[in-house]
């Protein structure tokens, strides 16, 4: 493990070991390569970096705090838990870090239209937000089933001027929205930039989205050193496609003493088959432009996933996570709907912070992990988003109409 230089990954073709790459139709090879070149050029460009940095401070509100959840830590009776407050970002989740980066790139590439897929609606809102700010036309693809679950975010996107297109094919969730966005993109490549919302898709997306989200980990590392005088013992983040997790983990990969846990959605339990945990219970395959762990049947068809949180309801996962799993650098685990809900309520009651159901998966794992650690140990949890968007789901489960 010690001799891996994480900065060397992915390779020039976008591979993380056997994972990643560019598994796309020929029509997209040219545009994806154009994007790679633009990213390689602007990603290093001082003007671009300065503009990105300024937007993150002044528009998103970064740096987000690293908050010591003292009361909750005391109740759990183990490690000291610190929450990386991505819920305090403009639009309420980590997603905006990435949409700002990609929108700045779209602008430099001269594109006038952006498209995106969304599950929970957080990435759709974050995309519609930056599109409004930069004056770009915006179309969001969203599964019919998710439109039903996340009505508030649909309305937010429309208020922001985006067109929300319901996707009725396949399982009518995030993966189908992504298929539909890709179909739009092959048709409109000349003037359209596809803003993918997580570390999935063909190269350069997994590396590019990671780099935009790595601000989370860079800040957390610095804040932890400043506030506690040392590095954390462990990091915990939920994994849908894996962007908030890789954003937190990546700047710590070389710090051998820092353990890392990626938390997938176990839905109704891994043994039930109703879950969205490809790393824990899937196997490698190819979907949406890269090779990674997938939820698939014995014939290679992608199967329907289930999670209480729309943002984790995805049958694949970023290829870098697949690789980090295989080399053992990150441990991947899964939390059920019920456990996540319990953590949602606990954090709300004990700390006065209402977490997104996605982030509640990370919190639930932290609640199991913390008591096994010493009371001077430090555990950083990525609070990837706020829970306002989920109150209808939570209320409905309690039989309350709001």
């Amino acid at each position: 493990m010690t001799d891996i230089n994480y900065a060397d990954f992915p390779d020039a073709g976008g591979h993380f070991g056997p994972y990643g790459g560019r598994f796309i139709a020929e029509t997209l090879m040219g545009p994806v390569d154009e994007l790679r070149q633009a990213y390689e050029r602007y990603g290093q460009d001082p003007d671009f970096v300065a503009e990105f940095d300024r937007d993150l401070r002044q528009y998103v509100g970064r740096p987000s705090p690293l908050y010591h959840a003292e009361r909750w830590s005391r109740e759990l009776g183990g490690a000291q838990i610190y929450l990386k407050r991505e819920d305090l970002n403009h639009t309420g989740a980590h997603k905006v870090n990435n949409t700002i980066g990609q929108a700045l790139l779209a602008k430099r590439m001269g594109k006038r239209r952006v498209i995106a897929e969304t599950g929970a609606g957080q990435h759709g809102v974050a995309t519609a937000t930056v599109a409004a700010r930069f004056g770009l036309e915006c179309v969001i693809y969203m599964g019919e089933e998710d439109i039903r679950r996340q009505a508030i975010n649909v309305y937010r996107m429309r208020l922001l001027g985006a067109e929300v297109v319901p996707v009725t094919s396949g399982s009518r969730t995030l993966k189908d929205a992504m298929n539909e966005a890709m179909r739009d993109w092959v048709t409109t490549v000349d003037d359209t930039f596809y803003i993918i919302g997580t570390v999935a898709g063909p190269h350069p997306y997994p590396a590019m989205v990671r780099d935009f989200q790595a601000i989370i980990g860079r800040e957390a590392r610095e804040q932890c050193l400043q506030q506690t005088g040392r590095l954390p013992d462990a990091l915990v983040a939920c994994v849908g496609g894996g962007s908030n997790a890789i954003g937190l983990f990546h700047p710590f990969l070389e710090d051998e003493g820092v353990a890392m846990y990626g938390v997938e959605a176990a839905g109704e339990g891994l043994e039930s088959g109703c879950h969205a945990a490809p790393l824990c219970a899937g196997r490698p395959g190819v979907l949406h432009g890269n090779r990674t762990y997938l939820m698939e049947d014995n014939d290679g068809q992608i199967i329907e996933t289930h999670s209480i949180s729309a943002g984790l309801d995805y049958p694949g996962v970023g290829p870098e996570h697949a690789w980090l799993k295989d080399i053992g650098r990150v441990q991947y685990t899964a939390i059920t709907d019920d456990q996540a809900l319990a953590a949602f309520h606990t954090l709300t009651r004990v700390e006065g912070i209402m977490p997104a159901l996605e982030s509640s998966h990370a919190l639930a794992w932290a609640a199991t992990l913390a008591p096994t650690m010493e009371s001077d140990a430090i555990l950083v949890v990525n609070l990837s988003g706020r829970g306002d968007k989920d109150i209808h789901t939570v209320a409905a489960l309690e039989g309350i109409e709001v």
Partner: protein
Amino acid sequence: MSRIGARFDTLKAAGRTALIPFVTAGDPKPAVTVPLMHAMVAAGADLIELGVPFSDPMADGPAIQLADERALAHGVTLHQVLDMVRQFREQDDATPVVLMGYLNPIEVMGYAAFTDAAAAAGVDGVITVDLPPEEAGEILPLFREAAIDPVFLLAPTSSRQRIETVCASAGGFVYYVSIKGVTGTRRPDSTEVQQRLAQIRAVTDLPVGVGFGIRDAESAARFAEFADAVIVGSALVNRIAEFADRPDEIPQSVAALLREMRQAMDGDR
């Protein structure tokens, strides 16, 4: 030489353009496919492209998405598709069959196992929509050894350099995607397509087929004037959808559509 090469040589000698129908295997139900393949050959198909249904057909428009969903509702697997080819071969040993689909079912079966099974079934070529030559380093030698032609797509967005890269790996024929978009959604511009074919022919001696936007006899005839093959998919698949509740009539009805195209293509010569 593969059946594909032999077929194109014969057509070239006769001064004819190949007509290649695409249908999704198992659409609307598995029992239709083999009789449909024979009926298409009788109606003038020179090669058959058989779609392997996939849950996430990203490069396909609504017509073929729905065809895949209909086939998958019957649980059609890659193994079953290969068995359909094997059955077809019992009566037809000359018409080339090319599978068209996405990589994941092949990944799951395993590259070597798939190659062996496909060759044994009588498959002549494979189009894997989401497998560009850059990612095909492992499977291409297996295909070559089994005499399966790797058919690759070229698109309006392919640069000159990419045309070279793709043609260097391609076998059988080259499939030019005539539109920027998914299958069956736009009408291609024939002047533009003609110019692109000239660019491709400057790089390769392989026959060049045109597809993705050909929907009727008129467009088939128009593209037949300069392409080596005309590939028709969504138009046939839409016809199959219309007859989904009368599957017994599908072979005859699709054959009638194909015959019109064949006549329009040959009539121009």
